[in-house]
């Protein structure tokens, strides 16, 4: 389908319509921090709440597919124990996802579909419609351009670009097409507007280049191959608080823990999973007390290898970092920034 135009004055109409027919999630301002506005994804209750010119949200949209905590199944104990599956399928529209987060979602899709598919993630994913938006601002620590995530060509149902006077919209799926047809006032884009989009997008890519890798992203696995014994790991890790923040805020981190919760009647309960993080000290501890990544250094290093190498060769054929810069922004000792670490490793190697 050709590119379409939504006039800015018609945006509220579209949003209101979506609100009326779906649960609409989108970016809102959570108030002012000393560094500027803090943005987060939440339920949109009025068109005015939706914010499309954010730089980066505190947390990525992964919570919609892998909630911080969710039930895998409910159960009943006793002489005839039974399990009852809870498979989520609440339809959802997420409005306003930047390309890097879209890319992260595509990566997660592959992870959860690989091997034994994970029905919970996939059911949530299937029930969700993604409306992307090209960034107009770059967060101070982002480096998505050098992670080849400034612009995406797939992984969305609709993709919007702010052209100043209006939004130009690309359709990425049948679902997206139907959404536009049913709920938005659109007109086909003129060739001028299409050209404008191209230049706007190259502008976006330029904006994102302010900080980034000093070398091509695909070299990261090889770089890591040679950096196992780099003193950098230990140097940084002595400052690591093992707080897991870098894991939790990351759109491509998905490790989880599983546990059982019983109700007070002690016969019914549920098996839950919740986010976990490989930087947390007990992540690899087994019952006999052995901790296979017992040192801060081993955990700290593991994260970079997982992002830069393990998943690359394992499932993704890509680096599992999209350059959102959240980990860099929220790591208090400021040691989690991948671009800084990779660049320094590269420097040391040269």
């Amino acid at each position, binding site marked *: 389908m050709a590119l379409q135009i939504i006039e800015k004055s018609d945006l509220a109409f579209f949003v209101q319509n979506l609100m009326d027919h779906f649960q609409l999630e989108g970016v809102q301002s959570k108030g002012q921090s*000393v560094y500027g506005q*803090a943005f987060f994804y939440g339920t949109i209750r009025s068109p005015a709440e939706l914010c499309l010119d954010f730089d980066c949200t505190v947390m990525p949209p992964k919570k919609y597919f892998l909630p911080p905590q969710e039930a895998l199944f409910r159960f009943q104990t006793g002489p005839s124990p039974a399990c009852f599956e809870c498979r989520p399928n609440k339809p959802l529209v997420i409005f306003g996802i930047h390309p890097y987060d879209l890319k992260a979602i595509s990566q997660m899709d592959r992870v959860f579909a690989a091997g034994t598919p994970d029905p919970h993630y996939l059911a949530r994913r299937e029930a969700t419609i993604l409306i992307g938006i090209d960034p107009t601002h770059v967060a101070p620590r982002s480096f998505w351009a050098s992670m080849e995530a400034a612009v995406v060509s797939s992984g969305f149902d609709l993709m919007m670009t702010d052209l100043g006077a209006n939004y130009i919209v690309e359709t990425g799926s049948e679902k997206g097409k139907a959404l536009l047809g049913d709920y938005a006032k659109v007109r086909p884009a003129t060739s001028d507007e299409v050209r404008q989009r191209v230049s706007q997008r190259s502008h976006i890519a330029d904006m994102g280049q302010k900080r980034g890798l000093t070398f091509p992203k695909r070299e990261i696995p090889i770089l890591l191959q040679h950096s196992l014994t780099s003193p950098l790991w230990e140097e940084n890790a002595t400052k690591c608080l093992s707080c897991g923040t870098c894991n939790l805020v990351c759109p491509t981190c998905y490790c989880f823990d599983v546990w059982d919760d019983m109700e007070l009647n002690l016969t019914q309960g549920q098996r839950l999973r919740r986010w976990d993080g490989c930087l947390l000290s007990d992540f690899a501890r087994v019952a006999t007390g052995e901790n296979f990544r017992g040192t801060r250094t081993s955990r700290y290093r593991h994260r970079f290898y997982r992002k830069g190498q393990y998943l690359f060769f394992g499932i993704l054929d890509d680096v599992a970092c999209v350059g959102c810069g959240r980990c860099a922004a929220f790591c208090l*000792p400021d040691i989690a920034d991948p671009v800084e670490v990779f660049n320094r490793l590269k420097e040391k190697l040269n």
Partner: protein
Amino acid sequence: MEKAKVAFFDFASCEGDQLQVINLEEDLLKVVEAVEIVSFREAMKGHSDDYDIAFVEGSVTRRSDEARLKEIRKNAKVLVALGACATLGGVNLLKNFQEAENVRKFVYGDKAFQYETYPARPLKAVVPVDIDIHGCPINRHEFVMVFKSLLLGKKPEIPNYPVCVECKMAESICVFEMGMTCLGPVTRAGCGACCVTEGSYCWGCRGLVDNPNADSQREVLAKYGLGLRDILNKFRLYSGFSEVAQ
């Protein structure tokens, strides 16, 4: 199956933790249904020394209290420390950092000698404690979790990761971004980052995680403008008993 017998006790404290148990409301009825409560002075008359599980609130602040605590330990199969005063010594410990006589005199003047006291301490400094339910006050959901675990014969899973984890799950803005400072990165989670989500910051009431990176936390606090004395004061508010605060 015979019901487990449960008793509640308290030492120097505000009894806010037992209050959280009462605050379970309808669930409290399920709790008392599942066990036999033989002693709970705050809520019932009567007492028996025959109990399996003792929940003990408060810190020990007088030598003369030790005997009562040891007696409780002897009677109980499982001793659970309830709340920061019991698990860490709580705010009561602040007086330990001042000269003892001065403290007594400041409050009781020339009659200070009438009032027995010694450096406040958590229960575990006097008797072995099986389970700590942290918090000031305790989180009633965590109480229920521990309670259920005990009935199921499970060791309760008290988190050993810091508050930042739950803070992120709650999608709070890190308070360091708001120009304040926070003990979340070294404080044991389990509270759901309740103070941060309510506009405050983590005070450290659940104590430190097992292997806190206190040096790095100090550096971070200093980086965000806290002086040495303030940093120490921050650690001392609840974790006065750990070496980090010395």
